[in-house]
Each structure stands twice: as C-alpha cells, then as structure tokens.
C-alpha cells in the first residue's frame, strides 16, 4: 500500500469514527471534541511545515492570533459577514507568514526556531497596547457565531460537524500535498538541503510555499475558533503553551505524517479533559472517600508536564511505529 493510500485510509477511518460518535457524546465531551478538532487543524498545519521541512517553528500560535483577531475585530466593529472576515483573516495570516518567512528562512536550525518565538510575543505586546480595540488580556465578546441556530443543542451539533468538515478537508489536502512530489521535495529538504539545491530545485521557494500553506491552515482553524467562541480571547489566541502543544502533538504522532499530527492533537486536547475528569472522582480510601478535586487546579500543570515527558520519550512518533509493522519490502516501481 502506498504511503498516500495508507495515510488517507487512516484519516478516513478516524474521521468516520468521529462523525459517528458525535450524537452519542455527552454535551461536555462534544464541546471538547469540537475544540480538539480545531487543535488538530493547528497541529496538521504545523506538521506540513515543520514536520516536513524540519524547520521547527515555536511561534505558530502567531497565525492563530493574526487570523483570529482579524476576523473577530472586523466582524465585531464593522459587522462584516463571517465568510468575508474569515477569508480576510486567513489572507492576513498568509501575508504575515510570507513576510516573515522570507528573511527568517535564511537562518539555520535552532536560530530560526528562536526567531519564530518573537512573533507571538510581539503580537501579544501589540494586542495589549491596543487593548481598547482588542480587549487586551481579557478579550472581547460579541463576535458573530459560526452557526446561526438559537437552540443550544443545535448549535453544538453545527459547530461539531462544521469543524469536522474543515478538519477532514484540511486533512485530505495536506495528506495529498505531503505525499505529492512537492512533499517529497520538502522531506528531502529536511534531510539534505544542499543536495536538493544541487538537483536543480529552488529550496527557498519550497520552504516559503510550505510556510504559506501552513499559515493558511492554522489561520483557518484560528478564524473558526473565534466564531465558535463568539469572542476574541487572549488566552486561546496567544497561548505559548498551545504553540508548544502543536509541536508535541505532531512529534508524538509522527512528524511529517499529517495523520499523526491529527491523532496527536486529539491526544493532547482529549487527554487534558480526561485529567480534569479525574478531579470528579473519589478514591475508595477512608470513610468518605478521597476527593480528587485538587486535581482541577493542578490539571494544566500535570498534563503539560506529562506531555513534555512524553515528547522526549516517544520522539519517533506513534504512526511510524505502527506502519513499521505493516510495511514489508517496497518493490513499488519497475520499468
């Protein structure tokens, strides 16, 4: 089975499962999975750039912020329809990505990664200075909702499946791209840039292309998230923790596989919710049972620490591990 077919099948299986279980989920989990789908989009967007070319971006949350604030504020103040503001938000994210990537890609390895950190930090500062417009560290409510339904349940279903459609579309596109000849070049760039250049390929052009695609995907996710939340919220649009979690999700799933990043995304967001669930348990210890409610406060810390440990332990990723079992000799081509 070719790589493309394998990844598409895994994607297909995963999204079908997610589509089917939707109506059976309790409300809280439906929301969680909706947010997990958004995050999976972020992770896949990160993967098509950093997972494939090996240029590790630390500041990818920047594209969420650019797109999110653009769509949210345009919608809030100018009352433009959301399809227009989302498009503009994504366009801004891509533009910002292009402007940044051209000088930044001249830097190698860790120095490139370091510079990507400047983006979210600078944006955060800008947002705080312009707090009267952006709502500063709190945010602003009143952004148009993604779904037009008045009934809460209907709205929830709508959000869930709208994001599902976006996630599936993005997944299909990125898997196709990553297994196309363009993907082959991006992977080759990761392994030996000089050799790629010597094969007549303009390496810079491909890196910038990957950057633009990545910015577009992450920007789409960010814009949608703003309308699902009906607000621009600093902690979700500019969270450094989320930026790192994108890296974790993709690495755990298997860098460059796209499907792996999707699985990693669900692991990260779903896992966090699971840890919070534990806070509702009572251990059968003592007369009244030991309430684990303290876990609530510690949830983020515990989970994030676990993720980082997992990152370094499972460096190769799950997907490569799995597909290692399925592949035998690859005599694919013959003349």
């Amino acid at each position: 089975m070719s790589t493309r077919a394998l990844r598409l099948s895994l994607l297909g299986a995963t999204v079908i499962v997610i589509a089917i279980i939707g109506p059976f989920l309790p409300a809280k989990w439906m929301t969680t999975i909706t947010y997990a789908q958004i995050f999976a989009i972020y992770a896949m967007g990160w993967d098509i750039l950093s997972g494939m070319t090996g240029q590790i971006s630390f500041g990818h949350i920047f594209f969420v912020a650019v797109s999110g604030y653009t769509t949210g504020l345009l919608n809030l103040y100018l009352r433009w329809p959301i399809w227009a503001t989302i498009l503009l938000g994504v366009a801004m994210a891509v533009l910002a990505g292009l402007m940044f990537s051209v000088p930044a890609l001249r830097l190698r390895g860790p120095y490139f990664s370091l510079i990507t950190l400047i983006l979210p930090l600078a944006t955060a500062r800008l947002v705080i200075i312009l707090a009267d417009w952006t709502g500063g560290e709190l945010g602003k409510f009143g952004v148009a909702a993604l779904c037009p339904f008045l009934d809460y349940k209907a709205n929830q279903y709508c959000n869930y499946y709208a994001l599902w459609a976006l996630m599936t579309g993005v997944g299909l596109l990125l898997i196709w791209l990553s297994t196309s000849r363009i993907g082959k070049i991006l992977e080759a760039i990761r392994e030996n840039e000089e050799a790629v250049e010597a094969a007549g390929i303009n390496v810079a052009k491909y890196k910038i292309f990957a950057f633009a695609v990545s910015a577009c995907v992450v920007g789409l996710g960010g814009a949608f998230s703003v309308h699902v939340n009906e607000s621009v919220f600093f902690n979700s649009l500019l969270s450094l923790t989320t930026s790192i979690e994108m890296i974790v999700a993709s690495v755990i799933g298997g860098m460059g596989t796209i499907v792996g990043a999707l699985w990693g995304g669900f692991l990260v967001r779903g896992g966090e919710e699971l840890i919070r669930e534990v806070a509702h348990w009572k251990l059968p210890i003592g007369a009244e049972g030991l309430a684990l409610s303290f876990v609530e406060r510690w949830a983020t810390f515990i989970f994030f620490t676990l993720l980082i440990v997992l990152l370094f332990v499972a460096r190769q990723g799950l997907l490569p591990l799995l597909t290692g079992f399925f592949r035998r000799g690859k005599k694919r081509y013959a003349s």
Partner: protein
Amino acid sequence: MALLRVENVRKSFGGLMAVKDVSFRVEPGEIVGLIGPNGAGKSTVFNLIMGTLKPDRGRIFFKSQEITHWPTYKIVDAGIARVFQIAQYFPRKTVYENVEIAAIPNEIFIRAPDPAPKTLQSCARTGLCEHSPNEDRCICREELPGMLPQGGLRRLELARAIGTDPELLLLDEPFAGLSSGEVDEISHLIASLRDEGQTIILVDHNMRGVMRLADRIVVLCFGEKIAEGTPEEVARNPQVQEAYLAGGGF
C-alpha cells in the same frame, strides 16, 4: 562555440587567494581534466562554477549566458550538474527516492510528468539496477544509501546528477576512496557518458585515471593556471613536473 567559459576568475578567503585569475574554456563533447596539487583551488573552481561561491572578480559563461551570479538551482536547471566529493544524499530515503528528486521539476504549480521513467533511466545508466530473475527490466534499488559501498554511492551521485539532464557534468574526485576494481568501473562509466555526448570536467588526484580519460588537461597550482594542453603535452611540461614534485606528487 565553447560550452563553458571561465574568464579571469578570482576568489579569496580572508587573506588567502584561493583562485587567482583563472581562465579556461570547455568545448562540447570533451572531457577536461582539472588537476593540481592539494590546495591548488580545484574544488573552489567547481564551487564558483556551480554558484555555491561567488567570485570576487571575473565572469563565467555557460552557452553564452553569464551565470556568474546565478543561484545554484538556476545553474543546475540551465544544464550544469555536479557530483560532490563527499556524497550528498538523503540518508533516510531509498536509492530510488534519492535519484527521483533530480527528476522532479522546479515549478510548484504545474502538472508535472511522472518522474518514474526518468528516474529508472538514470538508475539504469549508472548501473544501479537490480534485475529481477525472470525479466530484463531494471528495478531501481530500494535499499538505503548507507548500505551501499563507496562505488555505489558514486553511482548514486552520478545518477542524481544526470537526472537533471545536464549538458556539462562536474565530477569532483570521482575516484576517491575506491578500490582499483571500482576505479575501472567508474572510469568506464565516465567514458561511456562522454561517448554519448556528455561534456565533463574531471577533478581528481588519481593521475592515471584522469590522464586516460581526459581529452585536455588544465593544471592549477596555488590558485593559478600553470599549464593547459593534451595529457601528453602536460606530462612533459617542466613546470608541471616541478609543481607536483614540490607540492606533493601523485
């Protein structure tokens, strides 16, 4: 009309003049040997032609276009390819996938032809095929480059280079690290490429190999061209003999 014209090219690093006023031409269909003792500037000349380095002074022309300041990929697309001294390959991709990269065009937004035929052609041409027992078809090898012997890596480099359809091939120490059997094989391969019309510039320390293959020789010493001519002429040249005796020999 010369295929390649290098004119008065100069390059220094810090205080060291690596290449000083070097000029030579390469005609289509010939093999030019670039020889000289260690540190003569041979690899630097290759780097300058390929655009990896830019000369401080001088110009380089390929098929009457000036390529002096072009980026490497553009020079490759124009028709010059290089085989590196230390093989540059993709360690986690198979031999087939390594050669395939050269067959993929540079443009993103076009419908590209299937790279498979070209890739297999390159593999066959450089002897990287595994033949299936029943048929005569070439199946490009599927192992990782790390498993290949030195000779195999050289073939891989060559396959990748000719995959870009070059008119001029720069071979940087193709015989380095090879057993004498492998030297003969690669030598035959190079000669057969020339017989098909490929123009080649060859740099190596293995004098016998170079002298046998080359139609013309250019001799560099401490960055300057000290001799040029047929292998016989150059071998008899007293300056050349002195440079080799003094500089480090064969």
